[in-house]
């Protein structure tokens, strides 16, 4: 099953699944289907996490830009 949080781990898992298919001339259908289902779940979670990361990154950028405007000095 796909973990919610770690994008790198998920990508590693996808790479492993991809290699599994590539290494085989003949794929066991049941096993293959299970792998495909796992991969689909991982891809879905990864895309979701990527969107979360992008949003967090945009928030951080916004905060930095707002801080630049708010900086003041004391007499």
């Amino acid at each position, binding site marked *: 099953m796909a973990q919610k949080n770690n*994008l790198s781990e998920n*990508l590693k898992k*996808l*790479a492993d*699944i*991809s290699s599994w*298919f590539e290494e085989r001339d003949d*794929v066991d*259908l049941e096993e*293959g*289907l299970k*792998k*495909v289902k796992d*991969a*689909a779940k991982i*891809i879905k979670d*990864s*895309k979701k996490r*990527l969107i979360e*990361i*992008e949003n967090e*990154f945009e928030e951080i*950028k916004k905060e*930095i830009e707002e801080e630049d405007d708010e*900086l*003041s*000095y*004391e*007499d």
Partner: protein
Amino acid sequence: MSGREFNFENPITVSDYISVVNGILKKLEVKIIGEVSELKRAASGHLYFSLKDEKSGDIINCAIWSSIYRMCGVKIEDGMQVIVSGSADIYRARGSLTFKVKTVELVGEGKLRLAYEKLKKKLTKEGIFDESRKRKIPLFPKKIGVVTSIKGAAIHDFTNNLEKVGLKVCLCDSRVEGQEAVRDLLNAVKTMKKRDIDVLVIIRGGGSLQSLLAFDNEMLVYEIVNFPVPVVAGIGHHEDVTLAALAADKTLSTPTAAASYLMRGYKRARDVLGRYQKNIEISYERIIGKKRESINIFFDKISEFFGIIFRKYEDNQNKIQKNVQKSIFLTYQKKERVSSLKKNILYNFKNQIRQKRDELNLFLQIVKANDPQKQLNLGYAIIKKDDKIVKSIRELKKEETIETFFFDGTVSSKVKSIKKIIKDGSKK
């Protein structure tokens, strides 16, 4: 006592009168121009001289205390044209009027310049202006001490060019114009010594040699040199840079430039931070893009593999379907064959039965035809011995018991005689 408290209609004492006059004179702070003469220096260091009006020859006695004289930075000599500022008072013991000098300045651009050059030479010889003596100005000063006039434009020029980075600016007000500014500047610098600052900044706008006199003052130079933290001068200059500016650890030509210089570290940091921020943002966006691309590539690969699996399923399904159809067809064929065979068998069988029936009927007819009962009915008889049919006389002997079957019953008898039939029909 002031004059207002007195009723001058009545006589007053000498002392009171002197007090009244001194009270008035104290308020009369003026600048007087004249020529120095009869200069005397007391053991205490105080100077006494006369100031003569060149045109009229009128004289006024002057006195300058040693501390003030040291501060003023001018070497008073007989014959020197000077401007003195201060006020007069009457010395009670003698009843003489003396002008108490607060500041002294030379008269004439030429004289001022000479004095400037002379002092500059002296200080240069002492190594005051050597670069090796100069201290580094902090890159990120947080607490800045400023000496300038709060009424001037310099302070605004300076503060407007400071970065908004949480600086603490400590301002000490001082006159910055003319010789009178020397005392204020010295006091301000001394006050700043007690403050917790990272750097001292002395600023004013440009001006003439005369207006910038205070900044060519020797005492001020030494104060700057001996100041506990680095000193930045943002002093506009006359033809030459003022001695205070030369003595400072860093000199800039304007208050704006001084502020800019102090903020150089912050600006550089801001630029660097900005660049790093941009680089990091771009790099991180690139990483996000790459990850997205990886996910999409995996998605395409997985879809392809999925497609392959489905195609395999379909292939197998098709194969199975074909096989099933073939099986159905073969089954049908076999069924047809079986049906056909069945028909053949049945038909043959029926024929066989019919044949056999016919054969049976034939046999039946033969049997019927050969039925011994029929012979018996014709008058023939069947002879049995021991329940066996006797077909020949050879089977019999005399006196044997035989059974003779007639169509309507049976006779038991004994053989009496046997006669064989010879071929010509006679018996023997």
